[in-house]
């Protein structure tokens, strides 16, 4: 097996590995939001409410923020 063939196999397996990682990431994104652990969609408000003195969104984690709101 020469170096070119090795490069080909290395490229193939790296691709497969990265595809698995990417699909895992998709599942993670949707599952964590479904479970209520994350709220990615609120990050979209960063562009809309972008004044210097606007309250930062800060995190995709909904729980601590909600708790803070309740404590106020």
């Amino acid at each position, binding site marked *: 097996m020469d170096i070119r063939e090795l490069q*080909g196999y290395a490229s193939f397996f790296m691709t497969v590995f990265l595809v698995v990682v990417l699909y895992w990431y998709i599942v993670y994104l949707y599952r964590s939001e479904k479970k209520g652990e994350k709220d990615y969609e609120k990050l979209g408000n960063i562009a809309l409410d972008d004044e210097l003195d606007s309250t930062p969104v800060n995190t995709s984690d909904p729980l601590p923020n909600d708790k803070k709101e309740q404590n106020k």
Partner: protein
Amino acid sequence: MQSNAALEYDYTVAKLYTYTTILFGFVGMLIGTLIAAQLAFPELNYLLGEYGTFSRLRPLHTNVVIYGFTVSGVFATFYYSAQRVLKVSMAESKLAMFAGKLQFGLYLIAATGMVVSLLMGITTTKEYAQMEWPLDILIVVIWVLWGVAMFALIGIRREKALYISMWYFIACFLGVAMLYLFNNMEVPTYFASGGVGAITHSVSMYSGTNDALVQWWWGHNAVAFVFTVPIVGMIYYFLPKESGQAIYSYKLSLLSFWGLMFVYLWAGSHHLLYSTVPDWMQTMGSVFSVVLILPSWGSAINMLLTMKGEWNQLTDNPLIKFMVLASTFYMLSTLEGPIQAIKSVNAIAHFTDWIPGHVHDGVLGWVAFMIMSGLFHMAPRMFKREIYSKKLVEAQFWIQTTAVVLYFTSMWIAGITQGMMWRAVDEYGNLMYSFIDTVTVLHPYYAIRALAGVLYVTGFVMFAYNMIKTMSSSRELAEEPQFRSPMA
């Protein structure tokens, strides 16, 4: 960090890059129109001696529109939007402000050096990497300064979550840094030979097929990390902000981002189909190009769906028109590219006018539309004046849209005609046409392309005029508009 009681966003650097975007956009597109006309009417090659020939002007056109117009637009929109999505002012970081201003000063020097050296015929001859080694070093410094300004702002941000636009700008910074360094590894021959030849001349550190591979790894990813990634970053900020609608799906934007990062880097070898690079690598380039449709359309569809329920804005607001059509041209271009990368299609398309046709529906319809609409959105906020004329924006939109359609349709027809004529054989296997036969047939399409160029430049002059009048004499605004940009 200072108190933010009287603090405002500081647009000093964003304004400077806005000026250069307008200047280089006009120069680059004017040269493009001239060389398009030269292809239709060759006598136009002899207007300015050696400085006016197609061979001198073509690299000047590509370099000025890429590194002058587009990169200025990227820097202008970055220095504007990064402050806002990070909720921190440039005025709060002396380091960011210093790096930004120094970067602009060096950028002006490099851009001037680029124009002069290419006009003089000083070139490495590698496409989109024609600048010689002294300018390459200067560009590395400029790029590092951008990184310093970027991370200085990120370091003191109030908004802890990085908005998706910032991810794209960071990717642009990192991607170009890596690719530019690798592709511009070169040996200055004057120093290597002990003082022989021109001091500006260099040769690539790679040779033969390796050089071609690295070159197109760069060449295609210049499209990825200059023409795509930062422009997607722009639309993710400007379309939601202008329309008042949050991104349709933030998760899809994250997913598309990683998909694009993962796939784009490996598509460059589609420029080398049927060449001496290993066959598996050519196939990989084709496959990754086709897969690239998914993350590209992920972003584009996400943008179109952002307008869900608000399509009335498309008729009311010309900036939304620009952005929605930019997104649509992005979809067209990212479908067309993968089709051209399929080996059997590439056998016809390669070296034909279909390729510049593809490039231009991307850059004229997607990149330039997005940059111009971004600057229009920024103008009332930076200069505290309303946009000078809505009618002019509307007219510009229709003139330039017509221009893009004329450009790519004429080049589609020209390219496929060319490809078919080149490979046509008679019953004995002899080629049926000589090269000049194709040139004769293509003349009308070249003339249409030149007309498209004239229309597009006309639209750009209208944009420049509207911007200059907005800066100087438009009605002053009492307060900053929240979403829709006010225009007279």
